């Protein structure tokens, strides 16, 4: 577990650095709705380190940073909503873990 003390963007940069050094990108770095782009929190699931990451994973994290910058360029933080953003991020992270479980763990002994 890596905790990034910083913004959503700082999380994306950390994910980029780790993916480029071989860590598997398991969950997509972005949310599915533009409003959630303004969340100060983002949980991204990474896997184990390999020798090299496939191009698609590098491309997804790079494109995500470009997209994030574009959407949030003019936004000021709205700290009054931080608690709710944290709740939704946590809930979507739990759903991601369930998705991973359905994809993989159901068939492990």
């Amino acid at each position, binding site marked *: 577990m890596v905790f990034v003390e910083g913004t959503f963007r700082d999380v994306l940069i950390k994910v980029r650095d780790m993916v480029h050094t071989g860590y598997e990108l398991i969950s997509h770095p972005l949310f*599915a709705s533009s409003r959630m782009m303004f969340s100060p929190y983002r949980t991204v699931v990474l896997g184990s380190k390999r020798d090299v990451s496939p191009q698609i994973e590098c491309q997804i994290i790079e494109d995500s940073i470009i997209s994030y910058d574009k959407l949030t360029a003019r936004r000021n933080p709205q700290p009054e909503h931080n608690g709710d953003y944290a709740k939704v991020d946590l809930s*979507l992270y739990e759903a*991601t873990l369930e998705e991973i479980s359905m994809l993989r763990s159901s068939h492990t002994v």
Partner: protein
Amino acid sequence: MRLEHNLIYIKDVVLGDVNKVEDGVLTVDVEGLKAAVMTDDKVKDVKVDLAKPGERTRIVPVKDVIEPRFRVGRTNGFPGVTTKYEQAGDGVVNILKGAAIVTIGDMVGFQEGVIDMWGEGALWTPFSKTFNIVVDITPIDGLDPHQHEVVVRLAGLRASTFVGLAAENAAIDETKVYEIGTMAEEEAKYPDLPKVLYVQMNIAQGLLHDTFFYGVDLKEIIPTWFHPFEELDNAVISGNCVAACDKITTYQHQNNALTYDLYEQHGKTINFIGNIFSPELTTLDGKFRNCDYCAKLCHQLGANGVIVSEEGYGNPDSDLVMICSRLEKRGIKTALVTDECSGWDGTSQPLTDTAPEAVAVVSSGNVSKVIDLEPADKVLGNIKSAQTLAGGWDGCVAEDGSLKVELNAVIGATSEIGYHNASVKLY
């Protein structure tokens, strides 16, 4: 399948003590409606208001919009959700056309979703033209956001079914009949027409980001082929709350504009062979699996062409272009329908992801476009949510109280299934 839509055109709505339609005026039994919503013991209170086209009324934050209907001679409601499961898509539906149930529920403080019934805001949402029965639901204390969302979602469905009872014996203004036989029958009728499938991508990711088919959570399915009429007959409902401009409300599922348009061309320019759900998951493995499976289904069904619509923005862009690449590589011509996030001036790269195969793309609008919302005389919902709408940037609240907001915040402003107001102007 054969689906009959009996349309009852609504020209006004009033609150009363019985559900009925007379001369186009819908009367809603307001106490009965409240009682129908309060059958859930997790609902603490419910308020009912009306919002009519042209009034200086703002509704915010909107949870869902639902069309009130009466399913004739069948279970009346949403199969697998508010009623026992029943096959949808085959039968008769009486529809209060021009009326809508709008549910309000602020599960989280940053929730958007505005409908302005007048002014510039009204230009951008199709639900400024409907006579809206606004149902404001307060749940009991102590519910978590998951439970709150379920309570408001189901309350809206029950409300629409209750109001829809007015359609049971109302005079029918127009009947539209939709009929498509089996694939073999249609191919025999139209052997020379290209076979076209419609792939509908739906957000399926968890809290405030879900879609249901016969009550089944789309997160839990692999892409599946279904009959276009099932969606037009209450089989699909929305559990989305935070992608106001490009989420597909339940109303838009009930009236999927792409399905209507494809049906209109069926037997003329194309052979419309059905719809496919492709759930938008959160993991890359999940996305690869669904995109591959979706392309395989289209190939196996013999599609010559496919239309793909997206829901939401951000990680679903990856699914959209991956489906497109996989289809084109199999020799299937593919057109995409998506909105774009191309900055305030509209000049930035519009999608998160791109692919060289994605050359036929229809834009349903720029979610970042800034519009002005004048001060409202009446706000239905949460005044704090109205303030949250303002974009959170310098200068977004003017001295006269008007707000600058991005289209992001407006319900249905850039609908990626085409049920919206934005269009293209040629110069």
